[in-house]
Every structure is written in C-alpha cells, then in structure tokens.
C-alpha cells in the first residue's frame, strides 16, 4: 500500500516537474505597471498602449529567443502602496522577471527597491527622478533602468541648443529655488552654457506663487540677454512671457518639458523653445513608423487614429530596450540581461539610447518651438 502511495507521489511530482519544464521555455513574461486609475489615468493608458504595441510587434516577428512574450498588466495608480503591491504580486505570484513601469517617480522608487533586491529587471519609461536608478546610499541599483532622460539632462541639452543652434552667447536664468525640477534644469543649463563659452548675464529667483515679475523683468531688460532660460511649469511661463512681451523684451524664452501642456499660453510664449522627450512631428523613420503603427492599433472616441504622446513613445521604447536586451543577452537570465542592457545601443523613437554608469540613458532630446499659436517640432539635439 505504502509503496503504491510513494510511487503515485513520485509519478505526480515527475509529471509536475515535466509540465513546469515544458511550459517555462515557451514564453517570457513581462509585467506592465501603469497608473490606469488614480490622479493621472491618461498617463497610464498611453504607457500601457505604447508598451503593448512594442511587445505585439516583437511577437509578430517571432518573439524573443524563439519564445513568445506574454504580458501582465497591473494598475499601480501612481501611488507607492498599490505600486508595491502590484510589484510583489507580479514577481511572487506571476513569476515575472521583467517589469516595465511605473510612470511616476514616487511609485517607481519603492518598486525599484523591491525589483533590485529580487534581481528583477525594471525599466521605467518616464520616471525622471535620479533616485529611481541610484539608491540613497549613492549605489547604483544594478537591475533598474529608465527610458527617459533625467531632469538635469534637459538643462544641458537646452544650453547646447542655445549655443549651437540659436548661436547666442548671453543668457539670463529665472528659477524657483524651492522646486527641485526647476533648480536641476537651471543648474545644469548654467554649467553647460558657461562650459560651452556662453555667458550668464543674470540669474534671478522667484517663488511659485508670484504673479508680479516686473522687477525681475526690469533686470532682464537691463541685462539685455539673447535668451532667457525659464525651466518652470506652464503656469509660470504664461505669466512671465506675457509680462515680458508687454515690457518690450525681445529675448527668446526657453524651458523644459514643464511647458508641455494644453494650458500653455501659445500667444504669450510665441517664439519660445523647450526641450521635450519626443515629438510626433519628427520625421525620423522610427518616429513616423511608430506614429503610424500606434494610430492603426488605437483609435480615439471618434474613431480617429490616436496620436501617441511622449508617454506612449517612452513606454514603447522601454519595451523595445528590454526585449533587445534579452535578445542580446541570449538567455532568459536577469543577470545576463542586466549586463547586456549596460552595453546596449538602441535606435529608439525618442532617440539613440545608451546607458551611462548610473543606468540613465544618454540620448538625444527633442526641441519644440512655439510658433504662430502652435507647438511645432524644431530639431533633435544630441548630448
């Protein structure tokens, strides 16, 4: 009796092992953590759609390492707790080894701690905070990458654009000292601008709640810069650029992706430039193919093809980088994939992507111009 039991158990376990072994090599599981609900649901939908499009394209070409790619989509709500729960669920329950997400830095940071400790590769498409890939102790999180550039990088690119394309040597910086995003951009703009032979003719700070910029603008008028760097959000940009126009200031205003909003006062900001991740009007083939494929797969309420925004583009890039990394590693092994990613060079929608020592991509930024009531593509600047 006992022998039969043991034999049965053995047979069962062998069978289980066999099925496990037989199933595993067939697919590679990728989790997508996106804020489908919560404060920024449009970000989540675009991110999910961009990543799914990339994975579908890879599957159409036969998958990666001759295995099909399957996806697990979780709603992480742009909030630390749900994001951590989602990460634990996909890692422990679904046995996922690759995560694309989260969108928001504050959710990506706790997820990155878990992923890094469990040796799971995480690529965040859009979290720009430096802490996502580098721990508080200053150590690089080996398994964590991102597809977007970090905040300070935009400042460097802005300076380069002002020097090389606009060919201007005098810049004035306006910044909100209390905003890390603004401060980071301004700091690196100044560094790169002076290093490139430009001169900072003035630097003034304000606070987020200011509405009267006349004193600063009087100083701008007196300093006569060619360009005013104002890397703040659109609401400040609206005020400053309007008041500057009225004071007869003709300097060119420049900023970062904080300008990218439908609430930007296009009339006041006319003539300005800002750095952004990508533009659907860029006519590089990678961009145009992506826009076409995205529009073919996803339709808006009126049945028109959807135009992908920067979030969709970066999620698409993140998925492509990940799968390319797996392909170059040649094995479904996160340690090997991590090493492959560190050496990778991908010609992605948002530019040529390579990772630096801190796992941040070194890539080109897109410059957008505000012109005649529209935001138009201007150029791509390489660092």
């Amino acid at each position, binding site marked *: 009796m006992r022998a039969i039991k043991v034999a049965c158990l053995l047979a069962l376990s062998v069978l289980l092992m066999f099925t496990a072994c037989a199933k595993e090599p067939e697919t590679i599981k990728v989790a997508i953590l996106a804020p489908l609900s919560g404060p920024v649901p449009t970000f989540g939908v675009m991110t999910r759609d961009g990543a799914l499009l990339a994975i579908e394209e890879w599957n159409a070409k036969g998958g990666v390492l001759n295995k099909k790619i399957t996806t697990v989509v979780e709603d992480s709500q742009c909030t630390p707790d749900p994001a951590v729960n989602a990460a634990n669920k996909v890692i422990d329950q679904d046995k996922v080894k690759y995560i694309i997400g989260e969108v928001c830095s504050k959710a990506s940071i706790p997820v990155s701690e878990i992923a890094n400790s469990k040796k799971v590769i995480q690529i965040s498409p859009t979290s720009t905070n430096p802490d996502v890939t580098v721990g508080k102790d200053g150590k690089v999180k080996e398994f964590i990458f991102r597809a977007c550039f970090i905040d300070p990088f935009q400042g460097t690119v802005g300076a380069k654009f002002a020097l090389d394309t606009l060919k201007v040597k005098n810049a004035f910086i306006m910044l909100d*000292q209390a905003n890390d995003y603004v401060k980071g951009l301004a700091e690196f703009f100044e560094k790169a601008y002076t290093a490139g032979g430009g001169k900072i003719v003035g630097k*003034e*700070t*304000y*606070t987020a*709640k*200011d*509405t*009267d910029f*006349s*004193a*600063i603008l*009087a*100083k701008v*008028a*007196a300093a*006569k810069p060619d360009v005013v760097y104002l890397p703040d959000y659109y*609401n400040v940009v*609206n*005020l400053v650029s*309007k*008041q500057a126009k*009225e*004071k*007869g*200031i*003709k300097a060119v205003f420049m900023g970062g992706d904080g300008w990218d909003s439908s*609430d930007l*006062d296009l009339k*006041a900001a006319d003539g300005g430039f800002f750095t952004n991740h990508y533009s659907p009007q860029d006519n590089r083939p990678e961009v145009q193919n992506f826009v076409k494929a995205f529009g073919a797969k996803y339709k808006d309420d009126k049945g028109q093809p959807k135009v992908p925004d920067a979030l969709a583009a970066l999620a698409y890039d993140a998925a492509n980088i990940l799968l390319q990394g797996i392909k170059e590693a040649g094995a479904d092994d996160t340690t090997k994939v991590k090493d492959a990613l560190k050496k990778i060079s991908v010609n992605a929608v948002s530019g040529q992507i390579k990772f630096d020592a801190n796992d941040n991509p070194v890539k080109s930024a897109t410059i957008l111009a505000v012109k005649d009531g529209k935001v138009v593509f201007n150029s791509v600047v390489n660092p």
Partner: protein
Amino acid sequence: MPPRVVSVSPAPPRARKAGSRLAWIGKCFLGGLALLTAVILGRNLLLDPKLFIQMVISGLQLGFVYALIALGYTMVYGIVKLINFAHGDVFMVGSFVSFYAVTRFELHVWPAAVFPQLPSALVVVIGSLTVMVLSMVVCVALAVTIERVAYKPLRDAPRIAALITAIGVSFFLEFFGALSFVFSPRFIPYQRPFEVVTWYVKDGVHLVSATQAPPEGSVTFSNIFLLIVLASVLTQVFLQFLVRRTKIGKAMRAVSFDKPAARLMGINVDQVISFTFAVGAAFAGLGGVLYAIAYSSIWSQLGILPGLKAFVAAVLGGIGSIPGAFVGALIMGQAEALTMGYISTPMRDAVAFTVLILVLLIRPTGIFGEPEKEKA
C-alpha cells in the same frame, strides 16, 4: 458695550517703562536697519537711476492695487472693529467675475454687437467699464451677503468670534472656489478686455513696437499702470467726499464713534454697516479686475497674499484711517518692488511682513492712527 476680549490698541505704556533701560539696543538696531535700507537704496539710485525709476513704477502699480483692497479693510475696521479676512477673497471673486464676463459672455465687446457703427476705441472703453462695474456689483452682493449671514449674528459676540468667523468665510471662499465646477484649482490664463499698450520714455514718450525692443536706458510704463493709478486716486477722492460731505458719510462716522449713541440718534446702524461693507467690496472687486488685467493669471487662492499685504498696509497707515490705508499701501508697494529689485524676489513677502512687525513695535497705531480711547 460688550466686554473687550481682543484689542489691537497700542501696547500699554507700563511695558515700555519697564524695558526702557535696555531700549537703546532696540533703537540702535532699528537705526541700523534704517541706515542699511537708505544705503542700499541710495547706492542703487546713483548706480542706475533708470532702473530705479522702473522699480518704483512697478512698486506704484502694486501699491495702488493694494490701496484699493486696503480701503475695504480699514473702513470695515473703522466701523465694526472687525478685521474682515474674507476681503482678499472678495477681491479674487472680482477677478473671476471679470474673467467669465470676458471669456464666456464676451461682455467687453457688447457695444460693438449692439451699435456696430461705434468707433472701436469707444467700444473698448464702454465694454471694459461694463466688465468692471459688473465685477463690482457681484462683489457688493457677495460682501453684503457675507455680512448678513456671517457677521451680523455675531455683532454682540466677543470680537474674537467674529474674527474667527471671518477667517472661516475666507477659507470657504478659497476652497469652494477651488472646486472643479466653480473656478477649478488650476491657474487660468486671463483674457483681457483690452490690449496692453506699453510706452517708453526717452526723449519724449514713444510707443513700444512689436518688432523692436525699447532703447537702452529708457523707462517703460503701460496703459494698465495708468488705469490703476487713475482708478485708485479717483476712489480715494470719492471716498473722502463720501465720508466728509454726505449724509451717509456722517452716519458712518457717527457709527464708528459710538454705536449705541448713533442708534439713539435715529441712525439705522445695520444699514450703515452693510453700506460700508458694500463700498469696501466694490473697491476690492475693481482691484481684482485691475490686478487680473495687470498680471493676467488667476486662480482660486489669488486673494490671499494681496489681501494680507493690503491688511498690513492698512495697519501701517493706521487701521481705521482712509488716507492712512492709501499711504500705507503705497509704502508697501515700494517696499516690495525695491526688495524684488535690490535684495531678491523670494524676500518680498518676508519684507512685507517685517514691515508689519516693525509697525507694531514702533508705532502700533500706524502712521495716521490715533490711540484708541477707552469709552465708558
């Protein structure tokens, strides 16, 4: 008389005597502060007089707007001894009313729709005036409602109760306005009822053209600046006339002096108080429209800082005194603009409220204020 709980009256002389031995330290500190201010201002005036004048102009623009708000604070305080903290939010509502009038209902061009043959300049003037008057009317209605609902039932309560209610009303307006179906919590780009025109002064007055920057060493000012100065000065003249020469003004002064006695003389005290709130709110509404036109971005908490600074201005000038509010507001405007110009922009609020502390230390009654007499 109800028992006095809170008193903004001057520090009792007893306290001063006790510390008089060490008072020289404070005096030296204040003297040093005054000297430092004078040195900074003088040096910059000599260094670049044009820039200095430019700063003074932006300070005047700010100061005259504060004056419009400060009048409401000071009048209400003069009559009911209440610091009406909701006043800054009435100012905010004024700017939003004009925003909706212009953006949704295009009220600023109504004369062109009704009388198509009118010259466009006249259309702009009449249209803009309509928008301003509408904002003032809505603000008056709002302030009178607030007074009836929130302050009148507390007329005989301790003053601290009315003060706290005022803060409550202020918060209510701010956060009710922030609801998405009211004004929304966003910063809203303001569409002006008329275009801003800027002139520069250098060998005469010239228009700033769209293509060329004003020449070096010129001083610029705009039509908004002129409008704000004009509106503020006219208001001041009107108020002086109202308070000194009319029957309702006499009633206001009587109520301010002694409420029970005024009532015995047959003055309808409640009506006079409502009238005072209405006049103050009308000026706040006008201030709101002008402020929004000048700085062109509005949101539901727009009124907080200008409101507080106008309050400081009223205290500086001597709360209860109408010319005092005017002078105090102009000083506040200059303090702010010159701080922005010669120290740093983030310091401006700190300086504004330092002024309040200094006034309370040195002369708690303000420039034009008289020490409050205790009435039996």
